[in-house]
């Protein structure tokens, strides 16, 4: 398989095929990463485009980054962090919980409801984490990045990433354990409807 770096080298030479292959390869992962980070579909799409633009400009200015994957995620992460610190972010209402998956015509109303409930719970759990912890969890679980790559994305030491991930997962686990002990009224109602 052609590596990311080889594709980028060819892109830097103006190879259209390499450019399209690269966009195809990273569009999905970047969009899902930014969707999970921002929970704002429009903003996520804008930032995906901006990340690619920055890569193209980087190729125009200088050499291909040594480790391209972490480099790309670092750009995307920095865009998110900058956005969160901006006034625009504070004035926007977070779109959470109700983000629709791809339409599944076979799903029943109950399935959709349950999925929404699980999603809401998950989002609330993730919200209990700091921005950096959330980014680490997302990169590890949803983008399948190695811990060393995450360290590069986050500009942290490997042990700091491990420690942060461990603390985050412990926190998430506590939340899940606590919520499973509580009687879930809505869940029961849904099951009752299903029955």
């Amino acid at each position: 398989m052609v590596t990311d770096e080889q594709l980028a080298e060819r892109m830097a030479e103006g190879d259209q095929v390499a450019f399209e292959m690269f966009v195809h390869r990273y569009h999905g992962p970047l969009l899902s990463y930014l969707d999970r980070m921002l929970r704002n579909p429009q903003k996520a799409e804008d930032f995906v485009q901006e990340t690619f633009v920055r890569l193209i400009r980087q190729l125009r200015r200088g050499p291909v980054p040594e480790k391209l994957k972490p480099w790309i995620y670092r750009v995307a992460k920095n865009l998110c962090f900058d956005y969160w610190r901006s006034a625009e972010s504070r004035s926007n209402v977070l779109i959470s919980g109700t983000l629709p998956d791809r339409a599944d015509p076979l799903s029943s109303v109950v399935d959709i409801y349950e999925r929404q409930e699980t999603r809401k719970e998950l989002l609330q759990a993730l919200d209990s984490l700091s921005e950096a912890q959330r980014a680490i969890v997302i990169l590890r679980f949803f983008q399948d990045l190695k811990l060393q790559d995450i360290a590069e994305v986050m500009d942290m030491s490997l042990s700091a990433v491990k420690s942060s991930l461990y603390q985050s997962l412990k926190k998430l686990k506590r939340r899940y354990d606590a919520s499973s002990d509580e009687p879930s009224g809505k869940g029961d109602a849904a099951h009752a409807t299903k029955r």
Partner: protein
Amino acid sequence: MQQKDNTVPYVSDAELEELETELRGKLSKYVTRTPTMEDTQRLILNLQSEFMQLGEQDKTLAELRSLPLRKASLIGQCVQQARIYGKPFWLISALAVGMMTLLSSGSVHPAYGFTDAFSLVLPIFLLAAVVYTFRTWNPEMRMVESVTPFPPALLLLSRLLVVTGMIVAFGLAGTLFLKLTGLTFPAGAFLLNWLSGVLFISGILASLTFRRGIRTGLIASVIVWAVMQGMGQLLGRKLFAFPWLMGTIQLALMAIGLVLLFVSYRAGLRGAWGWDAGAPRGRRQVG
């Protein structure tokens, strides 16, 4: 390789892995949208103009690389630089040397070291001309120079050579004029007298300017000129009876000056003094 960080609590790989396995199932339920082929095509279209610029830039570079590089010669560069000065500079210089020649027509004492008018004025005239050319070493000019295939250090050297050449040419013309007017004096000794001073100071200036900068070069050159004047008077009196010894000293100074100019030229070719313009070194060809 694992980095050690003493500021964070240690977490074993096994503990972390266990926790990850435990939560993986729960977290995997957090699905997001996947872009369709149409979405990706739209994104490619949006990025196309930015990417085209990258391609255009590469095409331009490739075209430039394929162009045969003309071998730039130092003489050609000197001729080009000589055109920069303009007529007023040449006219004023000619007038100044002409006046000096006329004024010194009655007092040529070559045997007394560097104390004749030519030895006194021509090196200072050289330094003044260099100060005049210094105005063209501004950032804008440096920017222009940085895109030429000729190393900037050699560009500066070519200017100094132009000025030195002008001084030598005017000095020779003045000496010839004095000889033609019927003045009796040993022309060879007189030539050596002022020529050694001009070339020695020019060599010192070239060498120090490229190593330490124009200010150091000029200050050192003025000091050398002053020392030569002082020592010249002293040596001139002491060595009055030994003109061959005085001639040897002056020949040595002239040789040192020429060697310093040549060394500056060689170092300029290598770009060894940090005057690199940023262009690929392998592409530079200087004759």
